[in-house]
Each structure stands twice: as C-alpha cells, then as structure tokens.
C-alpha cells in the first residue's frame, strides 16, 4: 500500500473566517502533494462553521474533505478526491 503522509494543523480556538483562511493557505501550499495523492492535511478545530466552509472550498478545488466528530471538536481530513 502506498505511503500517504498526513500533516496535522491545530486551529482550535480560531473562528471564521480565520479557520477557512488558514486551511486555504495550507491547502494552497501543499496542493501538489494533495492532488498527487501522497499527502493529506488534517485540521483539528472546534469551530463548527468551518466544518462546512472548508469541505466546500476543498471540494471546489477538486479535493475531498471528510469531517469527523472528535472529543474536543472536529477533525477535517483533506485529501485527493
């Protein structure tokens, strides 16, 4: 199985629109790895709004975002579609 690297970002405490801007900045920086399928970005957040905005923006960029409920908020995993 191919080794896929996951980079984690803790944006807990941040609220919109900072959460979305930070996520977009990191997606932009790592877009080649994400599209290539060898990289995933995991965002930890406690801001509920961004569980909609980040996946929608990622989807528009041709990526897949999976939201999961975590103990102290949510995780949003952005990866190749």
């Amino acid at each position: 199985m191919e080794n896929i690297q996951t980079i984690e970002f803790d944006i807990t405490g941040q609220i919109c629109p900072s959460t979305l801007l930070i996520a977009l900045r990191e997606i932009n920086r790592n877009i080649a790895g994400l599209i290539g399928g060898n990289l995933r970005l995991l965002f930890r957040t406690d801001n509920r709004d961004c569980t909609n905005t980040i996946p929608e923006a990622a989807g528009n960029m041709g990526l897949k975002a999976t939201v999961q409920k975590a103990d102290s908020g949510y995780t949003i995993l952005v990866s190749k579609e």
Partner: protein
Amino acid sequence: MVPDSKGANCVATTDTTEIMALRHEVAALRRDNEQLTATLRSRNGYIRDKVNTLLDVMGTKPLRVEELDDDSIQEFDPLGIIFDSFRHILVSLKDKNNQLQLLHDEMIAIFSAAQVGIMVVDREFRIISCNDRMKEIFLDAPDEGAVFGEYCRDIVCKGQIPDELCAVRQILAGADVASFKGWEVRKHIFDVEAAPIHDTAGVVKRIVLVYNDISDVKQSQDALRKLNAELEQRVEERTAQYQEINKELEAFCYSISHDLRAPLRHISGFTTILCEDYSDNFDEAGVELLRRICTGSEKMGRMIDDLLQLSRLSRTKMKFMEVDLSSLAETTAAMFREADPARKAQVNIEKGLTARGDATLLGMVLQNLIGNAWKYSANTVEAVIEVGRIRSNGRDTFFVRDNGIGFDMAYRDNLFRVFERLHGEEFEGSGIGLATVQRIISRHRGEVWAEGEVGSGATFYFTLPQGKEQRRWEKNAI
C-alpha cells in the same frame, strides 16, 4: 553658515532661516506621511473589502479589524490566499468542465444514434429537446425549430392519451418511473417510459420520455404466435395419424399373435399325443424329433405370450402412484429363489427406493432386469445381484447389477430390440424382456441403458421423471 555684510545678526538670521526651512520640510514630510497613511488605509480597506466579498462567496464571515489589523493584513495576505485558492478552484472547474463536455458529447451521440424516440419536456409540458428519431416518428416535416417550446400534447400524443395514463403527469405526481405500454398511434405501437430530472433541491425540473417503437416486434410476435399455433395443429394432426397407425400396428400384432396361438396349440397338442400315445410307433430318432417339436412349440408359445404382453403394454392405461421399488425387488427376488431354491446367489437390495409410476409396469421392469441378472449369473460361483440407486444433482438413477457373464459393449444397441439375444441357447429367453423394459420406461418418459463387460457382469440403469417434469407428464399421460 556664511556671515552676511551687516555683522552679528548674520548668524542668527542664518539659523532662523535654516530652522524655517527645516520646519517646512517637516511639515511637508508630515503631509506626505498623512497622504501615504491615508493611501495605505484606503488600500487596506480595498483589500479588506475584496477579501470580504470573496469570503462571502465562500459562505463565511467577513474579516474583523480586531482579528486582523492593517499591519497584519499585509503580512497574512488573505487576498493572496484567496487568489491562490480561486486559481486552484478554476483549474479544478476547468477539468470538471472538460469531463462534463465529454459526457455531454457522449450523451448527444447516444441521443442521435438511439433508435428510440427521446424527448425532454419541462414541468409545463413544453418540449426542451428531442432526438432525430423522435422527429421522424411524430413530425410530418421534421423541423427542429418547430418543435422546441411547443407543448408535447400538441406534437406527440395530441390528446389521445387520458390524463391518468400520461407518463409526464405520473412523474409530476411523484412517480420515479412511469410507463405506458402498447400505445398505438400513427399505425405504430410504442412502449413509453418516463423518468424525472431533479434540480439540486430535489424538485422535478424536467422529464425524459423514451418512445420505443415495438410495431415490428409485435408483428413478429403475432406471426410467431400464428406459426406456433399452425405448428401445434400440424403436430397434433401428425401425432393423431401416428397414434392411429400405431394402434393399427398393435392391433395387427395382437391379432397375429392371438391367431398364431390356435394352430400352435394344435401342433403342440397333437405332438404331445404322438409322444404319449404313439411313441411305440417311432424309433429313438423319431421320439427325439417329436420331443424337439414339443420344445419348439412351447418356446414359440412363450414368445407369442411375451409378444402379446408387449403389445398390451402400449394399450394399458397407466395408474400413477408412489411405488416402493425396494419392496417390488424383494418380492421378485423371493420369487426367483422359490423357483430355484438350490441356487446360491446373494441379492442386495437398497432400502427406500421409491419412484412415482405405474406399479404393475415397474414391477415388470424389475422382474425382467432381476430375471436377467439371475439368469446370466447362474454360472458365477459367488453370484451377487445388486439393486440400488445413484443420486446426482437431486436426480435418481436406479440400477440392477450382476457379476455374471456380462456382454460386449459393441452390441449394447441391440440389447433392447425385440428378439435380439446376445447369448446362445444355453440361456433361455424369448428376446423380448429388455424390449419390454424399454417400452415401459419409455411410457414413463424415462431412460434405460446398460453397461457391461464380457465375463465381468452387467449393469442396467433406468431413470424416471421426477418433480415438475414428472407431474407435467403424469397430467398428460394416457
């Protein structure tokens, strides 16, 4: 500082001038600074405004000054982040557009090539699009412009379909699929199918209708049905003819056999009288000849009896019931033991062999097969006769096996023919037994066959219909 021509005030004047100049310069710089600050504030405001517009598009809240002040906005560069994101979005959309275009082209190709009429209408029954085949079917002069925007009821059904059968109405009423089979219009017969196209909110936006012209299929089906009926009629007529001929043949065979018995009885009777009352008038050779005539006429009598039995087989009405073949086999084996108590033969009969059929006829099958096994294993020292069953794929194959003299497989096709005998006079028989077996199994719509090897015994197998096949046959059996 350069002194002037008037002495001491010269320095002070010079200082004042310089101070003034400096003040002007500071004032100018302050003005520049204020202008630059105003320009920077304006540009930051512009950036903030543009960023907020784009953030609104992305469905999130605007930037707050307390969260990102003017100094930080330059450093964080939200416009740059969003710019890059939109660039990626555009690239992705471009890819998706290309894929959509391909799908669209494929759909258009299918739309054009389809040999069925395809039409798309909106909720108001207006035609949005349709393929060439649709136009061929429903337009007298196919003109694309004349169709789009028209109401389908004006172009296609022309009010000939009741509202409750209208496929579009069925879809608008909530059906996932609607169909109208066998719609006859313009000398054609159609099967009509309809399916909805939903918008993102799940509301039916358009309806796709497919008109499959089944006129040719219907015609073929009708022709085939007619042909089948004719064939069935011919088969029935031919079967009736064959049955009539068969009856005549059987009657002829019965009559001949029956009529032969009377003269044969005379020959046998008079020969017996000659043997018993006039033997003194014959020498030893003459007595032997008379004895041979007796034996021959007895044998011929048995053959005639067997032939009569065989001919009766086809005329006997079959009575179907559950038959215990194991029990029949036991009775048959006991009969042979009683007839020949000195004979040492091991007969193994499997328990629980049952089949559905005519008990009398199946009893005759077992009598003939076990009789053959008994007869042809007579010279075997440790004769073993087996009656059993092989069950494969839920079907039963019954068998009667012996370890007697066997037979050459090259002659297996002759086994079941009337008067065919593979062995000589050392074994008694009329050559009708296996023909009888085959006739009975055939009347049951089963199969019978044999395997064997010279000196190594023989096995006779037979099958009988089971389950649905058996019930169908029993229903039609005479």
